């Protein structure tokens, strides 16, 4: 009995001592949405940073899906206890940019703390996406991905297709899917996760056609959607046609349908390059990825792809000393070796040029060419005024609207033209509403 109470006393003392030393440190909270292997990466980063110095302590907390994390951050800000660092997916970028004093630009955080910080060190596609029109970096790029086409090499062989020469254009892809369907994939010749991101957002940029005016929103919050035109209409006509025979099979709005690829059911899956870890762990067949297909008669296609993934936003209203800690942590994250390691472990893109060059020089891509596909897509051609990216307010909600209209097109309730007209019209209502609530 007495030994137990002594143990308890010891534990209590230990706790007090730890708590005491923690109090001397400034705590930096970081809310994120990373799961599985990438969750471990986040924890390791925080641990390494905390071990590397004594003044600051980064405390990480997992807050659910991307949307959940953003909502948690917003709710916490309203309640006056926002974290210092909030991971926000690319869809939420415009909303964060319009958030006024709720956020603090990363460039400002770094300058005030006197940390060395060069926006030019980042991949241009990455830095441009998270910067203002004037080139001021607003959020810290963390995990970036792009959209690619994953395919099942074994299924290709079985269907008499060349596994080392995947289809490049949409007509070729539909043909391949037909052949695959006839050879053991009756329920699904091909599929797409993130239905709107792949078939509207990336589709627009990859074909260098405008999704919205004002450079897809990058040049102003008064952008107007104009995706009820060619080649969008033709693409959805083809998808609806293929849906009837299950040459293409709709797999939901998010990435919950990705399992249909790893299980072997769907031999072609269009989704994020961040799917890599999952494929590597779960696919029991030979696989590869290729750039997204395009319509060859669209002038300039393929152009370049745009970013997915997330960046780290610094929330407003914190103490100067805490911002110093945030700046130190970001400087720590930008380190070339650390970036290179992050890239090869997580499958997300390297976000600094130096890290990319380093990984390239190491010969890593010779064995892992599928990790380079998204980089090649992003840098395929220098970005034009309409292929720089997409930055639309209320995009989380607008995506839901688009998905609703796509579902109506795919189940035959609406013609592609009528569905896309409604998608643009309903989306514009939300864009105008967002415009009215923007602070700046």
């Amino acid at each position: 009995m007495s030994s137990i109470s002594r143990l308890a006393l010891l534990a209590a003392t230990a706790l007090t001592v730890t708590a005491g030393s923690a109090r001397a440190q400034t705590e930096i909270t970081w809310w994120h949405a990373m799961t599985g292997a990438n969750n471990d990466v986040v924890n390791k980063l925080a641990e390494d940073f905390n071990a590397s110095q004594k003044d600051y302590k980064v405390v990480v907390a997992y807050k659910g899906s991307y949307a959940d994390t953003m909502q948690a951050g917003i709710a916490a800000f309203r309640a006056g206890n926002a974290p210092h660092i909030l991971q926000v997916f690319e869809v939420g970028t415009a909303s964060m940019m319009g958030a006024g004093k709720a956020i603090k630009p990363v460039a400002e955080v770094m300058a005030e703390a006197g940390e060395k910080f060069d926006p030019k060190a980042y991949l241009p596609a990455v830095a441009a996406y998270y910067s203002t029109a004037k080139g001021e970096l607003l959020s810290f790029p963390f995990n970036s991905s792009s959209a690619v086409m994953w395919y099942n090499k074994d299924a290709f062989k079985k269907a008499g297709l060349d596994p080392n020469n995947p289809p490049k254009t949409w007509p070729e892809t539909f043909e391949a899917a037909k052949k695959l369907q006839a050879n053991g994939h009756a329920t699904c010749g091909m599929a797409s996760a993130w239905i709107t991101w792949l078939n509207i957002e990336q589709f627009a940029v990859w074909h260098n056609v405008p999704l919205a005016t004002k450079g897809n929103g990058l040049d102003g919050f008064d952008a107007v959607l104009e995706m009820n035109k060619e080649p969008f209409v033709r693409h959805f006509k083809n998808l609806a046609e293929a849906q009837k025979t299950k040459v293409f099979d709709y797999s939901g709005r998010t990435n919950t349908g990705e399992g249909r690829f790893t299980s072997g059911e769907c031999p072609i899956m269009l989704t994020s390059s961040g799917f890599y870890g999952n494929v590597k762990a779960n696919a029991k067949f030979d696989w590869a990825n290729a750039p997204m297909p395009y319509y060859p008669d669209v002038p300039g296609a393929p152009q370049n792809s745009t970013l997915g993934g997330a960046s780290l936003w610094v929330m407003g209203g914190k103490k100067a000393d805490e911002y110093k800690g945030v700046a130190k942590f970001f400087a720590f994250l930008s380190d070339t070796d650390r970036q290179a390691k992050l890239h090869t472990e997580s499958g997300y893109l390297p976000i600094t040029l130096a890290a990319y060059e380093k990984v390239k020089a190491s010969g890593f891509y010779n064995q892992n060419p599928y990790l380079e596909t998204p980089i090649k897509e992003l840098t395929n051609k220098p970005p034009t005024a309409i292929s720089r990216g997409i930055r639309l307010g209320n995009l989380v909600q607008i995506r839901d609207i688009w998905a609703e209209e796509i579902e109506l097109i795919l189940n035959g309730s609406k013609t592609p033209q009528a569905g896309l007209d409604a998608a643009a019209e309903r989306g514009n209502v939300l864009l105008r509403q967002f415009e009215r609530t923007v602070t700046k």
Partner: protein
Amino acid sequence: MEKRTVFSGYAIPLALLAPQLLITVIFFYLPAGQAIWQSFQLEDAFGTVSQFVGFENYKLLFERPEYFKAIGATAVFSVLVGTLSLALSLFLAVQANKALKGASFYKTLLIWPYAVAPAIAGVLWLFLFQPSMGMVARLLQQWGIPWDPLLNGNHAMILVVLAATWKQISYNFLFFLAGLQSIPHSLIEASAIDGATPLRRFWTIIFPLLSPTTFYLIVVNVVYVFFDTFGIIDAVTHGGPAGATTTLVFKVYNDGRSGGDLGSSAAQSVILMVIVIALTAIQFRYIERKVNY
């Protein structure tokens, strides 16, 4: 004769009422007032700027066909879930009330789902009916039914109705069972001796005597389908396909939380509150008359 206590003065009655009043004010009047206030505002998600816009949020709702579609979906969903969960649980309660071997075992199993969180219940049904890996979905496809809740609105509606009903059956079952057990056996035995068939005994004796329980459950179930089902819908269909399962309460939740559009969400919740208050008033006014206490 009714028993009445006459208090002298207001102090004691007020003190006795205070705890209940306080709870009602804190948990109903304050939030409801806040919702009404919020419904007249246009605000960004972070709450950094807000402006008074009068009835604009309401006006916008009724200009959109989506809102009327949600009202239609709510009507279908609530009638189906209400009827099914009450009818099935009454049936189960009558069966479990018979002298059975292992009756308490069945009762425990039937009450179990009540302890399951709505989202988990949703995911459970989603797994069974997911087109490419769900056990039931595969069976349906083998029978030649092109089961596809991702694109077929009716299939999606069936799925959320099943999940929401299953979740509510336990609660109804418990109350029906308690109601049944309080019906005097002598009444039923007497009618049996008079030669009434089991079905006749049920409709002329048991069902009327159960009416207070049934009435209570109707009120509670209406509140359940109108307010408590967004978690299940969010997990199973996320309101899709194309808004086929977007009910009013799911829309309140989705527009407010996922969309960050608190003004519209508040306006919708005010409308929903008015609808449910009206429904409850109608129930007390017209259905309660038929209840024998």
